[in-house]
């Protein structure tokens, strides 16, 4: 009785160790899937236009987050932040097609 239980536990443990790492891997990949675009957005907001197109996305050599913010709030004569954000969105979305 106890011997059979022991073998069963042993046989159940081996795939469980594998299963545990597979589960963690799948969850980790889905976390990367949801987080990386957000991370890209944050990194891209700190780049000027040339650096966005040319340099490595992870390099922080052309750090121009402050300049981007200044441009954002100065856009269209400095109207409300919401309005400028919307205007900025439409301009940005038009830009890839312009290339």
């Amino acid at each position, binding site marked *: 009785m106890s011997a059979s239980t022991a073998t069963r536990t042993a046989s*159940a443990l081996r795939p*469980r160790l594998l*299963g*545990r790492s597979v*589960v*963690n891997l*799948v*969850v980790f990949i*889905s*976390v990367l*899937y*949801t*987080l990386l*675009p*957000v991370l*890209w*957005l944050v990194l*891209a907001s700190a780049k000027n236009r040339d650096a*966005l*197109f040319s340099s490595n*996305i992870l390099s922080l050599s052309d750090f121009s987050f402050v300049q981007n913010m200044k441009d954002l709030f100065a856009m269209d004569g400095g109207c409300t932040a919401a309005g400028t954000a919307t205007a900025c*969105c439409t301009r*940005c*979305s*038009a830009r*890839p*097609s312009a*290339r």
Partner: protein
Amino acid sequence: MTSATPVSVPTDAPARPSPKSPAAAAPAPTARRSARRRELGACGILMTPFFVLLTTVFLIPAGTAVYLSFFSDDQPGLGFGPERTVFAGLRNYTAVLADPTFLGGLGTVALYCLIYIPLMVIGALALALLLDSGVVRLRGTVQLALFLPHAVPGIIAALIWLYLYTPGISPVIDLLGRADITVDFLGVHMVLPSIVNIALWSNLGYNMVVFYAALQAVPREVIEASVVDGAGPVRTALQVKAPLVRSSIVMVAMFTLIFALQLFTEPMLLSQSTPMISSRFSPSMYIYDAAFTRNNYGLAAASSVILLLCTIALSYGVTRWTNRADAAEEGAR
């Protein structure tokens, strides 16, 4: 039904619990009538906000759309006369239903639903089951990370992915290019999967949370019983937990269907950078185009009513089908 109280209740006493003692209630029919009136008044006051909101945000706009759909603008005198609104009967409806771009849009949305809804429901349920299995490290952090895209507004989400689909900026295309894979995410075959990906990214975490909350309510005894009966973790998840959260699966599928039928934001933004998305790509974009580009409000209203009817019919069909499946399951037991 069994009564738990040892004292037998007299038959003439009120069945429902009443704050008034029987002695006080007996002699005054006028008092009872005033209480009844007060009850009705409370009902009215409590239900008024609901009906006010229902009327102002649903009935009046929907009624206006139905009304508008029977009229069209007409310019007599070869288009030089003053514009006037004339009754058009069902002419707008026949025009919409005979328009191949509208039917094409409906077909696109049907295909989109066929790809998107199964992916969403299965993906969110699988993630919730994995998180519920108890072997995932840092569960709280993982849940927060998965839920984060839902906090990103839809337009911003579409914008991020538009950049990630654009060659030259996108690190994704860059990486794939290093592995000698060239994918045109905005090409003719990939544009619909690309839109599905944006919607999936935005809503996966939210639906995962819905499923996870439902899984928390699964009684522990049932899971223990299945483990005692020799079911492994996979079998427990698929054959015990998943059937027990069936009602939330139906709910998520229904909400996903309703939102999928209104497909608008993602193709509208992507259409600015790919010729594969026309200005009448989906029914919602057709309505937008009819109302704000062609200024044909009658046509826009008629196509809105048709889209609304399609949505109602599909939701009703899903509800009926799941109810019948439930009843069949109950009968089989």
